[in-house]
């Protein structure tokens, strides 16, 4: 329970216009599994996590984090990207 992995799969998927079905087929998992991953009910194996990142062509830390992702528009979020 302590090892929660946060992810932004749903956000990336929406942004790229990819359906759950398409992502499931690209990764070789069941359709419902994408939902489980997005809601954090399941964590991907390291290998699967890397494949997800590669699928979206982003570094793995853009998709996964040990800390909750800051909300979009949150001033704290910009401060992370551009440290004062």
């Amino acid at each position: 329970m302590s090892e929660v992995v946060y992810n932004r799969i749903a956000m990336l998927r929406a942004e790229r216009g990819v359906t759950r079905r398409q992502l499931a087929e690209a990764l070789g998992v069941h359709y419902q599994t994408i939902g489980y991953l997005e809601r954090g009910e399941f964590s991907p194996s390291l290998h699967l996590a890397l494949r997800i990142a590669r699928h979206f062509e982003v570094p793995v830390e853009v998709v996964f984090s040990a800390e909750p992702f800051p909300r979009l528009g949150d001033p704290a979020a910009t401060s992370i990207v551009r440290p004062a």
Partner: protein
Amino acid sequence: MAVTAGADALTAAEPPAGEGVTLDVRDLRMRYGTNDVLDGVSFTAQRGEVLALLGPNGAGKTTTIEILEGFRMRSGGQVAVLGADPATGDERWRARLGVVLQSWRDHSRWQVRELLAHLGSFYAPYSTERIRRPWDVDELIEAVGLTVHAGKKVGQLSGGQRRRVDVAIGIVGRPEVLFLDEPTAGFDPAARREFHDLVHRLADLDDTTILLTTHDLDEAEKLADRILILAGGRIIASGSADELSRRISIDAEVRWSRDGQRFVHSTSTATAFVRELFAQHGEDIADLEVRRASLEDTYMALVREFESGRADRAARAFEEVAAG
């Protein structure tokens, strides 16, 4: 077309290709205008075998069944059903077949029991030592789960109950070969289960050969000894659900939990992955699950593979024409 028309006249008198072969279809062709709906379909079925015919809409499933039933004339190829050519089959031959069409037959003003007793009476002259025809009407009504509705008019039944009447009409003559065109459309899960039990009973106990079409892949997997996938007028794959799944390499999904956290992984080598998982975490691993490709995954992959192959061929033909 390489069909030897000369040999056709003798087909009905010829014994089937082997002992117990009830359906023998070779190079079946059907053309509507310039459109080849069936382009060389071949398959056989044994006594007591259940075959499921799958395929996209318009693949020719219903056309195939209608040709085998003798309702539609083929353009080419050889067909033997119970040793006879459906195009020239007589009443005696027809009495040994059962047919459940895709759409309802309307007998709305008849009572269920009355209707089945009446239709059954036509089969009595074709009763044999081995197969007593027709089916006892009350036993039949029980077999299709309509006992409490036996006295009702067909028009008062629900869609699923009416479909059961269709099935009962199809089997009232105790057929040796039964054709079912989307038999469970409109069935609730319990009715579907009862229907599956009935199909198993007909195939296993009465040795009935059953050819059915369905879009319910779960149903095909449960019922069929052999699945035929029809696409582009040909059978692109056939085999048991398990055999078909081994033709296509689709990744398996592995799920497990460790320290109360749930994980998922996707791999083409599930056994090796699980071995590694236990080597690493031993007894910490719980809730292990390996989910292989479903028949739906396999079916979609096979049809897609076929369609992309066809697109490639068309593109090549186009290039050849362009080059020439």
